[in-house]
């Protein structure tokens, strides 16, 4: 993972540094926050491109699925370029492939995409002071991967670098993968036979790990998983994921500040 390249001491730096910078950004609240902190290190940049390559494989499976569902190659590619939020794309195409209505395809895709609005809020302080054009460009790459890796970084500068590097790597690889899958779908075969449907969530497991270093992160993660488990049988597709966002509230309210009680390293493991 991107952050592990900083070595063992990185865990503590993320926890304590993260909160310090969060507060610093809050106070500064004005034009470009002073670059008090370090940029993203080269090891992390390499790791981000490795992540991108794996996302490219998901892109291939999306391309295959989309053309199987009846989209043309151009439509599959346009969707990845313009919609560019993987889970929503899979949901929309999956509903169409299963013979569902356009309305329900839209409904589940947009419910899933709603979390990107929350990610945008999370990234807003990092992008504060940048020009409107730059922020409008950045908006297209506000996705799971860019936000997860950015918010795991200790300082504002590293967050911004991680956001752009991850967003661009994923954008390039996801679109290249989609094109490959859409064009060569027949040669690739059934993505499920290759286990690619498990690769997507496995990538999310890896992405969440840096967030589990703090107790708050572990509470939020356990809460989010629990909300989803409870709501899957009760609510329409998409709702369990949007509702999981509420897990951040108990994580902040009932967990002491990380600077007071954070464990010295991630040894406590996966909550």
């Amino acid at each position, binding site marked *: 993972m991107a952050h592990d390249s900083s070595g063992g001491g990185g865990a503590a730096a993320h926890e304590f540094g993260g909160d310090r910078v969060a507060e610093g950004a809050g106070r500064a609240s004005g034009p470009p926050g002073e670059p008090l902190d370090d940029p993203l290190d080269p090891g992390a940049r390499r790791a981000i491109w490795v992540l991108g390559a794996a996302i490219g494989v998901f892109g291939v499976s999306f391309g295959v699925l989309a053309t199987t569902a009846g989209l043309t190659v151009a439509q599959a590619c346009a969707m990845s370029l313009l919609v560019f939020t993987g889970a929503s794309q899979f949901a929309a195409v999956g509903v169409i492939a299963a013979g569902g209505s356009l309305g329900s395809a839209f409904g589940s895709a947009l419910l899933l*995409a709603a979390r990107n609005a929350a990610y945008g809020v999370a990234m807003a302080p990092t992008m504060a002071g940048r020009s409107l054009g730059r922020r409008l460009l950045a908006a297209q790459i506000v996705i799971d991967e860019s936000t997860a890796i950015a918010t795991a970084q200790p300082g504002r500068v590293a967050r911004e670098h991680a956001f752009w590097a991850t967003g661009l790597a994923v954008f390039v690889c996801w679109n290249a993968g989609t094109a490959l899958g859409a064009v060569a779908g027949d040669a690739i075969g059934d993505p499920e036979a290759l286990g690619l449907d498990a690769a997507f969530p496995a990538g999310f497991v890896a992405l969440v790990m840096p967030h589990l270093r703090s107790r708050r992160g572990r509470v939020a993660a356990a809460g989010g998983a629990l909300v989803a488990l409870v709501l899957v049988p009760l609510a329409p597709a998409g709702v369990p994921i949007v509702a999981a966002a509420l897990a951040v509230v108990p994580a902040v309210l009932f967990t002491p500040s990380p600077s007071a009680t954070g464990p010295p390293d991630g040894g406590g493991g996966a909550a």
Partner: protein
Amino acid sequence: MSWWAILGLAVAAYALKAAGLVGVGARAVEGPALRLATLLPAALLPALVVVNTLAADRRLVVDARAAGLAVAVVLAWRRAPFVLIVGLAAATTALVRAAG
């Protein structure tokens, strides 16, 4: 799926992303709100994992995907490289599916 549907989805998806990043001023996201917002990936990623590995439509199921998930969790916990986590999870699911 028509071109209009794809364009509509693209506009709506972009509007959601931009609403958070551009629509909400950074000034509105300070202190406690910022702490809440930066925890969002921690809460949402596990929910996405649950929905993508343990759910089929509106039922909870344990199938070949759960085996891949178990492998991913163990490997991630042991801090394995990203590619190994993703690759072995997919391979496990593929093997369990082929065997089942």
